């Protein structure tokens, strides 16, 4: 049992906690990173490798994703291990005229925001994805969509931060958090205590249980995504792949409202990406299933059937693993990044849902700016905790 003193305690060794801890170390702060389990045991280690710009509506999240993409390029040489960052482009497959007209409008709005994206026809799509099903009538294409290995990214942040003196405590959940004499005192489940001027809550889908220790609640809920992993395969195509159906269901729910089947209940959408190692990750579901992280046979069957529909060639590939992750979703689709009113020095950095990896580099800098009292590169208003407390 000991009491550890540092400037800042970061809770949660997922990608956003690590990115925040790393940025704060770079600015000369002493940082202790605490996780109730181990690094990457939550959503950050149970996701795919895509950094998609195309999936984002024009607005501040798209702008932050642009900035993150620039930062990833720097991190790929700055961090002490290979984060396997690549820019291979992305395609969103369009299956019918209804989807096409929604996507044309969406793409036009993204282009106005400066994203390099276009609608391409069957022939160009087949050059990028020779094995795509004939029923796909068109696709979007953006050369900017990229990939990074989330585990390697976390490892890079971890090693980089530890090299600058960060202390890491795993298997220790905070059990009490109290403000005493101008600083925060955290009692951990492993018997240690932590004293810090600032606390950053980056515990993803579990963020609310930490808030509960301080007596408040935020609308952050786990949203489950199930994913299949194939054996290593020769590359099937160049780009990351998504289906338009998922974006259409978000933008124009009325077009898909009639669908009430199992697939709709699982929030099925197609995501398909070949990793650096040659395994294909095939997803995914989008479910409200509490904190249950088990994969379900019927969901995996739906994902497999959907993969065959888009890429018939995949039928004979072997699935070697499946997993599920809990994305931290918020009531308005925006993460909470900021200080909690009434709890001076207690900051939130959680609620990125499916954008946690893509936005990690900018999140770390944004929080480090707030904590250090410098002006963040982006408007803080959309991310403020106040917006939920008022409601």
């Amino acid at each position, binding site marked *: 049992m000991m009491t550890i003193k540092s400037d800042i305690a970061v809770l949660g060794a997922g990608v956003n906690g690590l990115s925040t801890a790393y940025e704060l170390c770079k600015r000369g702060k002493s940082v202790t990173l605490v996780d109730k389990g181990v690094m990457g045991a939550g959503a950050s280690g149970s996701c795919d490798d895509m950094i998609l710009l195309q999936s984002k509506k024009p607005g501040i999240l798209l702008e932050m994703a642009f900035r993150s993409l620039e930062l990833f390029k720097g991190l790929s040489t700055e961090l002490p291990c290979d984060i396997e960052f690549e820019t291979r482009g992305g395609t969103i497959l369009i299956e019918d005229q209804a989807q096409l007209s929604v996507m044309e409008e969406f793409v036009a709005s993204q282009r106005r925001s400066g994203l390099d994206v276009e609608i391409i026809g069957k022939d160009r799509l087949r050059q990028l994805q020779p094995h795509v099903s004939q029923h796909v009538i068109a696709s979007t294409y953006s050369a900017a969509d990229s990939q990074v290995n989330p585990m390697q990214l976390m490892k890079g942040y971890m090693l980089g931060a530890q090299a600058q003196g960060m202390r890491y405590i795993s298997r220790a959940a905070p059990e009490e958090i109290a403000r005493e004499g101008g600083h925060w005192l955290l009692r951990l489940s492993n018997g240690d205590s932590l004293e810090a001027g600032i606390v950053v809550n980056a515990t993803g889908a579990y963020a609310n249980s930490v808030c509960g220790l301080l007596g408040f609640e935020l609308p952050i809920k786990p949203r489950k995504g199930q994913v299949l992993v194939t054996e290593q395969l020769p590359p099937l195509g160049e780009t990351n792949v998504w289906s338009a159906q998922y974006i259409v269901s978000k933008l124009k729910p009325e077009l898909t409202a009639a669908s009430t089947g*199992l697939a709709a209940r699982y929030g099925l959408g197609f995501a398909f990406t070949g990793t650096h190692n040659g395994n294909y990750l095939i997803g995914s579901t989008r479910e409200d299933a509490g904190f249950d992280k088990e994969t379900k046979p019927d969901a995996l069957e739906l994902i*497999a059937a959907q993969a065959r529909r888009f890429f018939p060639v995949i039928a004979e590939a072997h*699935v070697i*693993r499946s997993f599920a992750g809990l994305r931290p979703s918020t009531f308005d689709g925006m993460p909470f990044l900021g200080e909690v009113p009434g709890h001076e020095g207690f900051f939130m950095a959680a609620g990125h849902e499916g954008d946690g990896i893509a936005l990690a580099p900018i999140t770390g800098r944004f929080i480090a700016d707030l904590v250090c009292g410098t002006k963040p590169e982006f408007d803080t208003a959309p991310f403020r905790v106040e917006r939920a407390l008022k409601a």
Partner: protein
Amino acid sequence: MNSDDERYICRCEEVTEKEIREAVRAGARTVTEVKRWTRAGMGICQGRSCKRLVERILAEELGVSPAELEPSTVRPPIRPVSISAINMEETRERNDREEG
């Protein structure tokens, strides 16, 4: 350096004994953590050949017996299965029925 260090422990992902020992020294306490850190056990056999070896190295580094290690997670499927084989008729029918 001991020549044993360059031995492959995970053959599928070509992870050496040295890399596994480094992961433990970096803080890994379980087979699952070693897997995340090094990819040992993430290949086609899903750790069926290397899991016990990784446990032995872990136990040795930590100075405990393998039985004292936290049990590792096993993810479905139990063995590699083709995409076409996990497309079950029953689920499709249930889906059609619910949609219908």
